[in-house]
C-alpha cells in the first residue's frame, strides 16, 4: 500500500471514528442500539451543507449540524424511546422506523442529487506529507478525529461526567442507587452521541459527498466497528475504526467489487473467537 492509500485509509478511519464513537457511547451506556445513527449522520451533513452554503462558514455549519442533530436526538430519546421501556428489540426497531422517516424527509427536502459541503479556503489545495502531495482537507479530518479522540478520552477519564458514564456502562443501577440522577447522564450522553453523528455528517459531506444511501454505508461501517471494538469502549472504537478504515481502503484498491468482504472476513474471524469484540466486557446486567 502506498503512502497515499495509507493516508486515505487513515483519514477515512478518522471520520468513521467520529461517527462510531457517538454510536458506541449511546450503545455502551444506554444499551440502545440507535439504528437511526446513520440517518443522523446524513441529516447532519445536509443541515451542515445548508448552513455552510448560506453563511459561507464551515465552522458555523459544523456547529449548526451538531446542534440540530442533538435536538433531533432529544426528540428521539425523550419523545419516543422512553415509551418502549427496556426492551432491546422494541428499541432497535423503533430507531429503525425513525431512521426511515428521517431518510424519507431528507429525500423530500434535498432530493436525490448528491451534494458536497464547500471546503473553507484555508483547507483547500494540498500539502506535502510523507513524500506525497495530499489534500489538506483530508488531513484536517484526520486531525479532527485525533482531537475528538483526545477530547472524549479526557471527558471520560478526567471529568465527573466521564466517571459517571464509565460507572453507568459497568452498572447503571448501582450508580442510580448511590444518588446520581442517571437519567440526566443518559440524556447528556445521547445528545453528545447524536451531535458526533452530526459533526461526522458535515466532515464526511465535504469529501465523500452526501446522497440518499450514504447513511446505510456509514451505519454498516459503524456496526462493524462496534462489533469489532466491543460495546462502550473508546479504545475499541479507535482500533475498530483504524481496522475498518484501512481494510476498506485496501479492499477498494485490490478488490473493488467485493470491498465489503474484506471487512467482513476479519469481523467474522474475530467473532468466532471473541463474541463481545476486542475490548468488550461481559456485563452483569
Amino acid at each position, binding site marked *: 500500500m502506498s503512502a497515499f492509500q495509507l493516508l486515505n485509509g487513515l483519514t477515512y478511519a478518522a471520520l468513521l471514528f467520529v461517527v462510531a464513537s457517538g454510536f458506541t457511547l449511546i450503545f455502551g451506556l444506554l444499551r440502545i*442500539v440507535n439504528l437511526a445513527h446513520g440517518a443522523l449522520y446524513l441529516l447532519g451533513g445536509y443541515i451542515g451543507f445548508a448552513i455552510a452554503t448560506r453563511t459561507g462558514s464551515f465552522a458555523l455549519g459544523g456547529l449548526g449540524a451538531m446542534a440540530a442533530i442533538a435536538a433531533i436526538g432529544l426528540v428521539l430519546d425523550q419523545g419516543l424511546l422512553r415509551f418502549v421501556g427496556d426492551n432491546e428489540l422494541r428499541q432497535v426497531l423503533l430507531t429503525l*422506523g425513525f431512521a*426511515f*422517516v428521517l431518510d424519507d424527509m431528507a*429525500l423530500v427536502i434535498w432530493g436525490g442529487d448528491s451534494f458536497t459541503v464547500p471546503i473553507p479556503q484555508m483547507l483547500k489545495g494540498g500539502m506535502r506529507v510523507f513524500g506525497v502531495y495530499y489534500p489538506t482537507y483530508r488531513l484536517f479530518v484526520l486531525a479532527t478525529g485525533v482531537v475528538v479522540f483526545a477530547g472524549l478520552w479526557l471527558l471520560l477519564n478526567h471529568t465527573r461526567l466521564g466517571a459517571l458514564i464509565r460507572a453507568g456502562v459497568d452498572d447503571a443501577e448501582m450508580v442510580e442507587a448511590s444518588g446520581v440522577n442517571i437519567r440526566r447522564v443518559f440524556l447528556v450522553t445521547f445528545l453528545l452521541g447524536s451531535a458526533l453523528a452530526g459533526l461526522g455528517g458535515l466532515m464526511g459531506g465535504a469529501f465523500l459527498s452526501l446522497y440518499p444511501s450514504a447513511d446505510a454505508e456509514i451505519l454498516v461501517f459503524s456496526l462493524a466497528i462496534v*462489533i469489532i471494538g466491543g460495546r462502550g469502549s473508546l479504545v475499541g472504537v479507535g482500533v475498530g475504526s483504524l481496522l475498518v478504515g484501512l481494510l476498506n481502503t485496501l479492499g477498494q484498491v485490490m478488490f473493488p*467489487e*467485493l470491498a465489503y*468482504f474484506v471487512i467482513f472476513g476479519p469481523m467474522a474471524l474475530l467473532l468466532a473467537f471473541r463474541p463481545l469484540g476486542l475490548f468488550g466486557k461481559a456485563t452483569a446486567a
Partner: protein
Amino acid sequence: MKIAGMTSRAAVAVLVVLVIAAALPLLLSNYRIELATEILIFGVLAMSIDILSGFAGRTSLGHGAIFGVSGYVVVYASAQAGLSPAAAILLGVIAATLVAVVFALLAVRTSGVYFLLLTLALGMIVWGICLRWTQVTGGENGLRGDVRPAFLVGHRAFYWAVLAATTLVSYAMWRFVRSPFGLTLLGIRDSESRMKSLGYNVPLHLFIGFAVSGFFAGVAGALYALFNNFVSPSTVALQQSVEGVLMMIAGGVGTLFGGFVGAAAIIALENVVSAYTERWQTVLGLTFIVIMIFAPDGIIGMLRAILVFRFRSSPHIAEPRFELGNKDTS
C-alpha cells in the same frame, strides 16, 4: 380425531380458509389477484422469520438478504444462464440456504441485541455485494428476466400455484415448530442455560433452526422472483428485512400463521398509502414506531387482548410467547 397432525376442528378451519383462498381469484380483478399473491409470498417470509423470532427467541434483521439472494439466483439462472425454471428455483433455494448457513455459523454464538446487529450487518454486506458486483448482479439496474413457465403466466394460474406452494411450506413450517426439535428451540428461547444444563447442544439447535428458517425464506424469495420477474439491490436491502420483521410482528410474534395477517395488513396499507402519497417510507417508519409503542404484541395479540374479556382461551391461537411485549401480559 387427528388429521395430518391437527385436531379435526382445526383441520376443518384450515380447509375453509383454503377453499376461500382458492376461490378468491374468481372474484377479484387481476390487480387484486397480484396483491393477494404478494401477500402469500410475504406471509411465507414473515413466517420464516417467526421460526427464529417466535420459537428460538432470536430476531433476524438479515432475512431480506436471504430472501433476495434466492431471487437473484433464480433470475440469473433462468434469464442469464438459460436454465429451466425448476432448476433455477432449486438453485435459488439452495443458494439462500447456503447464505443462511454462513449467517448462522456467525450468529449462533450471539444473542439479544448482538444477534440483531450481526444479522443486520451481514444482510447489508449482501446488499453491498449486489450493488457493487455489477457484472453479475447488474448493479443498481438489477436483473430482469421472464422466469415463469408458460402455463403460469396468467394471474389466476400463478396465484393458485403460489397458494399451493404456500400451503405446502406453511404446513412444513407448522410441523417443524411443533416437532420435538421445535420444542427444543422453544426451550432455548425460554431458558438457554437450563437447556444447556439438560444436555442440549444449544448452538447446534440454533444453527439448524437458522438454516431451516433460511430455507423457507429462500422459497419465498424464489416465488417472489417468479412473481416480479425482476430483482434489484432493493430486493435484498435492509428495508426488505425490516418489512418482513414488521409483518411478523404485526401478525404477532410466535403465532406463525399471523405472518399472513401481518403481510396482508402491511401490503394493504402500502397499497392504500401509495394511492395518495409517494411517502411510503415515511408511513412505514411511522407504522413501525406506532406498533412498537402501542401494539408490540401485533394485531393478533391486540385482538386476543380484546377477546380475552369475552371468551376464555382460544384453542387456535398459541399462548403469547415472545420477548417482544411486556412479560406480564399473559
